[in-house]
Structures are given as structure tokens and as C-alpha cells.
């Protein structure tokens, strides 16, 4: 049994929170380059250049990439042979608190959805734990923007709706809400599981690199087809018209009940800020 201190978790997450808000990942920068080479709209290309310039400015460390520094979404994969000395959940939240304070990041979390008072420190994070083999702790942090999250949707399709039904729901979700979600987008799709599993899979998919592909060739082909169909919608960068509406569509699937076909679509904006650390 390996032991780590809760404080190590806090320090690592605080650092990661600042890192991802100031340094947009290489996966996204590569996707911007690619988008710029294919976008047909002049206004669209100018917007993409602004995104590149914005990324360069943010990387200087004075101003975060986007003023909405997001909900802190933490995927914590805890090795079953690892012991954390101290309270892990508290340590994660303390890391977010510290990172958002020292990094001059915006605090957007309200203590209650209806009474709407800001907690002032961007906590609590939304934390998803899973137990995995090994003695490491892997933390994936997403700073998930609120505007794009608002354009996300979930539906329980009938099994007879099939593959086409799933694809249509994804394209329709982008068609209806894409313009308001700061395109070009990264679209995360969760298929199967059940109601909450589909939503979780969609989030996981939305935090994957836009150029990544599902290991299953069936779903990889679906990702390519969905990317192409979404880009035919004409929404374009910032919704002002163009041929790059999405940078990628990522699909994750899971076994499900014989009567069910759940589909969740989690929309991420071009400020797809995510990173990971292994302790």
C-alpha cells in the first residue's frame, strides 16, 4: 500500500487549475491551425486568428484565456493500492480554491441553484471518483464553461431509433444550440449506460482531445461522420457562418438495458480547458 498526503493533491490541483486556464492545450492549438486551413468564411478565419492571438496572450500569464473560468470538473481515478492520508474530497476542493484565488480566476459557483449566492471560491468542484487498479492517483481537471454547458442535452431514445437516431440527435443539438456555445466546438457524446451514465460519458468525451478517436472502429467512424455532418450546418466560428462549427465530435459508449438507448450531448466551447496530473 502506497501512501500520499492530501496536501500533495491540493498542491497539484491548484497548479493544474492555473495551468489550464492560462495555457490552452496543444490539442486545441493544433485544432485551431487545422480549422484555419479549412475554414471558407473570411470572418470565420479572422475569428480563428483571434483565438490564436488570445491563446498567445493568455500564455503570457497575466490574463486567463476566458473570463468564464468554469465549473471545476474533476475525474479522480484512485488506484486501489493507494492510501491518501487526509480527506481526499476536501483536498481536491482546497486545490480548486487555492488555484482560483492565486490565479486570479473568476469564481462562478453558486451555493444553491435557486437562492444563487456565490460561494466566492469556485468550490465545490464536481468530482467523479472511480477506483482503478494500481497505486496511483490520476486527476483530470476540466474548467468547463457555463455558456456551452447550457446548450447540452440528453434524451432517452427508443432502441428502434438506432444509430441514425443517435446521430440525428447529436446534429440537432449542435444545430439548435451551437451558435450560442462559442464555436468552434468540441462535442462530447455519451451513448448507452443509463440516464446518468450517458451524461457522464458525454462529459468524459467532451474532455478528450478533439483529434482523438474512439478505440472501437465503429464509434471512430461515427465520430468522423458526425464531425462532417456538424460542419455542414454552416454555423461556423462564433456562429457567424462558416465551415468549421466543430473541431471534433468524441463518442463514448457503454452497455445498456435492452429497452434503452440513452444519448447525452455535452457541448464544449473552443476554450476547452483540460489537463491531468498523476500522483
Amino acid at each position, binding site marked *: 500500500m502506497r501512501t500520499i498526503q492530501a496536501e500533495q493533491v491540493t498542491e497539484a490541483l491548484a497548479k493544474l487549475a492555473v495551468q489550464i486556464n492560462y495555457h490552452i492545450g496543444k490539442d486545441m492549438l493544433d485544432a485551431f491551425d487545422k480549422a484555419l486551413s479549412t475554414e*471558407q*468564411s473570411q*470572418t470565420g478565419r479572422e*475569428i480563428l486568428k*483571434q*483565438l490564436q*492571438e*488570445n491563446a498567445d*496572450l*493568455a500564455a503570457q500569464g*497575466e*490574463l*486567463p*484565456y*476566458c*473570463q*468564464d*473560468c468554469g465549473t471545476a470538473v474533476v475525474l479522480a481515478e484512485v488506484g486501489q493500492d493507494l492510501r491518501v492520508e487526509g480527506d481526499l474530497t476536501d483536498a481536491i476542493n482546497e486545490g480548486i480554491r487555492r488555484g482560483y484565488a492565486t490565479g*486570479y*480566476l*473568476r469564481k462562478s459557483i453558486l451555493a444553491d441553484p435557486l437562492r444563487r449566492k*456565490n460561494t466566492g471560491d469556485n468550490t465545490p468542484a464536481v468530482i467523479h471518483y472511480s477506483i482503478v487498479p494500481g497505486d496511483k492517483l490520476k486527476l483530470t481537471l476540466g474548467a468547463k*464553461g457555463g*455558456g456551452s454547458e*447550457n446548450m447540452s442535452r440528453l434524451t432517452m431514445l427508443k432502441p428502434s431509433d438506432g444509430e441514425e437516431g443517435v446521430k440525428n440527435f447529436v446534429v440537432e443539438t449542435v444545430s439548435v444550440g451551437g*451558435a*450560442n456555445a*462559442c464555436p468552434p466546438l468540441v462535442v462530447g457524446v455519451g451513448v448507452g449506460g443509463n440516464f446518468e451514465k450517458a451524461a457522464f460519458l458525454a462529459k468524459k468525451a467532451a474532455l478528450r482531445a478533439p483529434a482523438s478517436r474512439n478505440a472501437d472502429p465503429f464509434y471512430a467512424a461515427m465520430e468522423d461522420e458526425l464531425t462532417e455532418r456538424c460542419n*455542414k*450546418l*454552416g*454555423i*461556423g466560428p*462564433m*456562429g*457567424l*457562418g*462558416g*465551415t468549421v462549427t466543430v473541431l471534433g465530435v468524441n463518442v463514448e459508449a457503454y452497455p445498456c438495458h435492452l429497452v434503452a438507448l440513452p444519448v447525452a450531448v455535452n457541448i464544449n*466551447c*473552443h*476554450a476547452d480547458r483540460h489537463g491531468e496530473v498523476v500522483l
Partner: protein
Amino acid sequence: MAEYKLTTPLSDDVAEKLRIGDKVLLSGIIYSARDAAHKRMVEGLNKGEPLPLEMKGAVIYYVGPSPARPGNVIGAAGPTTAVRMDAYAPRLMEAGMKGMIAKGKRQEAVKEGMKKHRVVYFGATGGAGALIAKCIKRAEIIAYEDLGPEAVRLLEVKEMPLVVVGDAHGGDLYIEGRKKYEST
């Protein structure tokens, strides 16, 4: 698609000549306000109270910046989604507002109001928070300080890059721009 360098406050003549797709570099004084500030301004107007800013010719920016570092004017300051302000925007148009800066589609009532009162909707690049912050030369809270990031700020901007996404003639770039590039 023309390109203009404009300075606030905006006149009716300027508002009328702008068309969707035009590029604008905007300078001068603008005001930040979003959800809570809009609610408060409109509630005040309905009670006959004065507005905290000169609304005639004013341009309102829908933004909630991140905290400024010591010595900096402001933090990242990109636009927020406009539709949440749609319930309040027509009332502010009646009070003289000439321009809105934000991102995303608007509802019909807002577009109707823009035609009636000759108002322009400018799109700023959402998420380009650092880039836009560089155009802001001065920021002071002038009202509703208790609202924190949502307080009303006077912002002095220099050549803020914008695109006309909604014009005073009913034009909507979210519809027209998409039509141009949609394929089946």
C-alpha cells in the same frame, strides 16, 4: 461588408448605416452590465428611478470579467451569451441605448426593438477574454458594487474588434451567415 472605426456615444445616423457583417473597431466609453444589473436597471426604470448611467447613445457590454491582477485594469473580459438579457434589452432601448456587445442569437422581441429604436447588436469573439481585455484602457465600477463581477462598470475601450451581428434594419448574421455556408 464595410469596416468602420467608431467612437461612442453612437448616433442614430451611425446606427442606421451599419449592416450585418460590417467590421467595427470601437473606441470610447462603454458600460458593462449583465443579468443582475439589467434586472436592477429595468426594475428601477419601471419605478421611475434614474439610471446609473447616461443611456442616450450608450453601448452596453454584456460581460463579467475575471478578477484584475494588481496593477492591471481588468481581468479577462470576453462577452457572455446575450439571450439572458433579452427580457430587459427592449426597455433599455426605449431609454436611449444604441448598441449592445455580446455573443449569440437574440429573440424576436429584441430584433423588433432594434428596428424600432435603431439599435445595433455587435458581436465580440466569445472566449477571447485576454485579447479583448487588452483593448480596455480604464475600468471603474459606477453602480451596484455589491454585485461583484456583475457590477456596472464604465469601460474606456480602444479599437475593440467587433462584427455587426444584428442591425437596425432587421438583419441577423446568425441567420444570414449560416445560410451562406449550410450544405446538405
